[in-house]
């Protein structure tokens, strides 16, 4: 039976979006923004079953093409094959969102180098490894957008999370360089700096409710910034001002703060 329920599906085929770090709620929210506009979405994450389940959910929910893949950000050796195979299978990918990350526990990172190493490997080394491969795929076709989730924690290192913060600072610097290198190839690089977001990463932290953004809000901000080819965004927007002030504090005072 033909049912008329308004506009219905657009028949226009859109390009594809690759999500690296499918366990991220922010990534999932951002993917929803794309999928509801008929982009195809490819999820890759450490837990292959979960990535596949998510892809299946998106297929049912948005009637788009979606699939899930296994991807381990810290298994650098596997990245080349992963990217080559993936882009062969999904040749419509125009947008990439890199959303994996690992906060770890600051105290453990201080005492146990392997924890610090995991934090740096996940947040920085892993992104560098995979970004270069993606860039080399985008360069020949002179198009593509790479968005990476960094953090406001990378703007200034404080005692509460400086191992994570330093990895994210390195990441932000890396992205700024990558953006500059790729702009002549018409490839866009977006640095996303979220504040506190209501995800498993912030569970148990004492964060004022007003400063805790929903993954949906942040995901939507990222989506808009990706389409509008923004360079660096803070999300929610007020973090720009918060970090502006935090950066102004003289080091002699800042070092005594418990930030």
């Amino acid at each position, binding site marked *: *039976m033909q*049912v*008329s*329920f*308004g*506009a*219905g599906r657009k028949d226009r085929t859109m390009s594809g979006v690759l999500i690296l770090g499918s*366990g991220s*709620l922010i990534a999932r929210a951002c993917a929803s923004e794309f999928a509801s506009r008929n982009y195809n979405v490819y999820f890759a994450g450490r*837990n292959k*079953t*979960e990535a596949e*389940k*998510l892809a*299946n*959910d998106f297929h*049912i*929910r948005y009637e788009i093409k979606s699939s899930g893949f296994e991807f381990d950000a810290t298994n650098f050796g596997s990245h080349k094959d992963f990217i080559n195979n993936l882009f062969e299978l999904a040749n419509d990918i125009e947008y990439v969102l890199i959303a994996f990350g690992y906060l770890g526990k600051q105290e453990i990172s201080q005492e146990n180098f392997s924890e610090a190493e995991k934090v740096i490997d996940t947040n920085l080394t892993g992104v560098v490894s995979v970004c270069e491969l993606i860039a080399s795929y985008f360069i020949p076709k002179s198009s593509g957008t790479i968005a990476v989730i960094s953090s406001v924690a990378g703007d200034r290192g404080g005692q509460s999370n400086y191992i994570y913060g330093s990895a994210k600072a390195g990441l932000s610097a890396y992205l700024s360089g990558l953006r500059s290198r790729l702009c002549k190839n018409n490839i866009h690089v977006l640095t996303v700096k979220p504040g506190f977001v209501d995800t*498993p990463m912030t*569970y*148990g*932290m004492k964060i004022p409710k007003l400063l805790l953004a929903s993954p949906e809000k942040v995901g939507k901000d990222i989506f808009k910034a990706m389409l509008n080819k923004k360079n660096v965004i803070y999300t929610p927007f007020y973090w720009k001002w918060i970090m502006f002030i935090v950066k102004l504090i003289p080091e002699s005072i800042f070092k005594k703060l418990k930030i």
Partner: protein
Amino acid sequence: MVNFFKAEISGFGKYPKALCKITRPSNPDEIKSSLSNGTSVIPRGLGRSYGDASLNSKGYVVESLLLNKFISFDDRSGVLKCESGVTYNDILKTFVKRGWFPGVTPGTKYVTIGGAIASDVHGKNHHKEGSFSNFLISFKILTADSELLECSREKNSDLFWATVGGMGMTGFITEAEIKLKKITSVFIKNKTLKLKTLEELFEKFEENDDSYIYSVAWIDTIASGADYGRSILYLGNHADKDELPYKTKKSEEIKVNYGRTISIPFEFGFTPLNRLSLKLFNASIYNREKENEDYIHFNRYFYPLDSVLNWNNIYGKNGFVQYQLIVPEENGRTAIDKILHKVVSSGGGSFLAVLKKMGDQEGLLSFPFKGYTLAMDFPVKPGLTDLCRELDKILLDYGGRTYLTKDSILDENTFKKMYDGKWQKWLSVKQKYDPACRFRSELGERIGLCQVF
């Protein structure tokens, strides 16, 4: 290690509150880890039960919100398989535009499927189509010994009927298979009747219940004297797309979803709901409404209160109690009349009071049976417990009971009288699957369902 955070939470009525350790697993393995260290747990969805059904101050509160994926959908039969944290909102957003609607819907779309099963929720169509379980085919549940069991009417049927309406105390539902129903438009053809007395209202229920799948009445619980019992009866059926007037079709057809919602982001310091404001509010509802027939968008028809998010905040930080009762059809009118008199004379009154006719229901602790249900909201203040106890007494005299999903006041004795013959059976199933009472809530303990065997 279980990743949890501590917070003071409550049900939708904001009363009572409890400091709980909350976990939010993102896959079934993580639920197992909250079960593995020997403490008690209670599942929680969107926290839309009113009282303390989803609170557990002695162990973990395990939220289902991240388990919210669709698993499969058959667009010929309308059978949907999904994880337990999927909400009505998810289902409506996805499937209404494809011509499918939930078989049963409660008065808000911010309810998870897990919660709908645990409360065996009912809607305006209960007298015709029963409650949620009538559209539930099967579910998977993680029991106390970390086993994942599939339950249906054929398989593990004892656990199926104990879980339906079982308030989350039999295990953690991970996924469910439900049946949606076919619709051809997003509109409900509604008929509004204004009635002056309770007798008139009951008569109209009898007269119309067969020809309308949706029916519900609003009663003015403030009006006394000559206006006592004045009410408005809403009757509805899904409109067929061919019967829609051209203008309706064009104007709203594409708006499958959502007008804007507004939010009340904080609790009022005091509640603006007092006798005077309630009187004005109730009178304005009665006087505004006209007797007519019209086509109403499903959002406005089923979820009028969802347009104000967190409307419960207007009751202030003390919160409120929703007292929902049911009495058998026989002598039901007298019972409702008695109860209403009691409420009106108490001067408490209710912000909103709704009456509806119900049909039979199978779940061991499911609320409905053939009779009349009445739901009223009361702000929490001194004397409320006494009023509820008095209402409980009338209920017991007439063989009635209250709805556990809304409850925060019931005591063990009264509960056991109200659900006599049922709770014993439920407890024997509980003993079989959860002898150490690992699934525990404040509600369960209060009404004597959380004993260690």
